[in-house]
């Protein structure tokens, strides 16, 4: 009648059952491990894209180009207005200053610019947008407002790149939900097929247990525990694989990412490990629950 004795019995029975039919259990564990490895990779990829988006948004400088012959007072007024509206920093840049920077950034090719008889660059205002306004939507509104002004000929910011990254990040998230919905369903089906075989191979034992007074719950519990153990093993395997990959990739990834000036390499968060363990146990449990419900006619 004691609960610990029952728990010990269930655990022993589950492990024994796994040891007696290793192949089907290896298949189930491997399936869970593969699904969760893919999940972990997707988690890291999404986080990386988010990081890039944040980094790019963090550098956003909006450049507002002014029409030729704009009065300096008008320009100063706009600088003040922009500063106030965004709580950021705005600065008036002269054509000469802009040309100087351009030629500098072009290196040796920049020297060619010095031969120009007339500076082709207009006056402009450079605006550094603070974090609260760095959202693509906010930036867009701000740019449209500026474009509407008569003295403004154009507005430039990392619009295209930022929007593309935001879209990519969203796409990745929704794509993941879809793909992993499917992957997890397939995993559950495979796990439940493995459990079906386990149930089948133990049908004689189940019959005898029932005849000597086992309740349905008593017969079912070891299979559910088997599912949980499979899920946890699969998650553990997936985690070990990902950690190994990260350790191996770590330094190289940093090299690749340096040009983006993001740094940090592929990020891993400890809570994802818990997430994966939970998912694995959940997948194993649901798989075994399905098998027990459908095939354990006790």
């Amino acid at each position, binding site marked *: 009648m004691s609960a610990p004795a029952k728990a*010990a019995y269930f655990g022993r029975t589950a492990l024994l059952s796994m040891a007696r039919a290793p192949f089907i259990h290896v298949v189930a564990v491997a399936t869970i491990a593969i699904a969760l490895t893919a999940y972990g990779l997707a988690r890291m990829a999404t986080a990386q894209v988010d990081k890039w988006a944040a980094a790019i948004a963090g550098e956003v400088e909006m450049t507002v180009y002014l029409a030729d012959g704009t009065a300096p007072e008008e320009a100063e007024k706009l600088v003040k207005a922009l500063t106030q509206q965004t709580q950021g920093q705005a600065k008036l840049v002269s054509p000469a200053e802009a040309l100087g920077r351009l030629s500098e950034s072009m290196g040796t090719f920049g020297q060619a610019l010095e031969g120009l008889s007339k500076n082709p660059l207009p006056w402009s205002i450079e605006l550094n947008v603070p974090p609260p306004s760095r959202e693509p939507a906010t930036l867009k509104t701000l740019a449209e407002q500026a474009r509407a002004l008569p003295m403004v000929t154009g507005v430039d910011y990392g619009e295209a790149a930022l929007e593309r990254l935001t879209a990519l990040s969203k796409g990745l998230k929704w794509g993941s939900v879809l793909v992993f919905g499917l992957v997890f369903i397939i995993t559950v089906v495979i796990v439940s097929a493995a459990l079906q075989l386990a149930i089948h191979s133990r049908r004689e034992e189940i019959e*005898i247990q*029932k005849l000597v007074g*086992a309740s349905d719950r008593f017969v079912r519990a070891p299979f559910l525990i088997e599912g949980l153990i499979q899920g946890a093993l699969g998650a553990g395997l997936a985690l070990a694989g990902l950690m190994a990959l990260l350790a191996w990739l770590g330094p190289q990834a940093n090299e690749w990412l340096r040009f983006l000036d993001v740094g940090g390499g592929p990020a891993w968060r400890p809570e994802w490990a818990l997430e994966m363990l939970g998912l694995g146990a959940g997948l194993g449990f649901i798989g075994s629950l399905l098998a027990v419900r459908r095939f354990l006619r006790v």
Partner: protein
Amino acid sequence: MIQMFHVTKSYPGDPPVLRDIHLDIQKGEFVFLTGPSGAGKSTLLKLLFLAERATSGQVLISGKNIARLRESGVPYLRRNIGVVFQDFKLLKNRTVCDNVGFTLDVVGTPRDVVRQKVAQILKRVGLEHKIDVLPPKLSGGEQQRVVIARALVNDPAILLADEPTGNLDPALTLEIMDLLCDVNTRGTTVLVATHDASLIARYHKRTLRLERGTLVAEHDVGLKAAARMAAG
């Protein structure tokens, strides 16, 4: 303790295996159930631990009609009934200890207690030295005794034994019968299905006779047989 009223059992598509059975077995009684092969002895026993359900009629255990017992109640019924199966139902890949221990496992008995109780009951059937052996390595008679041990390890209120001596030599048969009698004197109600007439003759017990699904004789068949043997 065990009562049947108007009990009929038929398997789908076949004529009834048991017909209008009436019986009444008192608590603490020892009763033989006999009859030719195919008469329905095993089927009658199966109705008592709900391996089969009666098609009609009432089956009472301790005054409760189990013919209508809901599925969730079946395990509790079976924990009070030890059954010696005609076909043994031993797991080949589990030790004698595991096989006998099943009866205790299902009620959550700790492992060390299981082993201790199994060792005790094996001693009573003379198999204490075989506790860690796999059933295929036992003789037919030894396997039979393992099955009896499994039925008794739980100290059931009722023991149903289906041909418990079918595979034993005369000496062992007597030993096992003495064991069943001993169990009976300690308070367990015992119902033994057998077609072994010499057994019935030797032990003067109440005997029920089944023929083609009907109870044909009651009470003192065993005594009459004994008288016949004594006379002839």
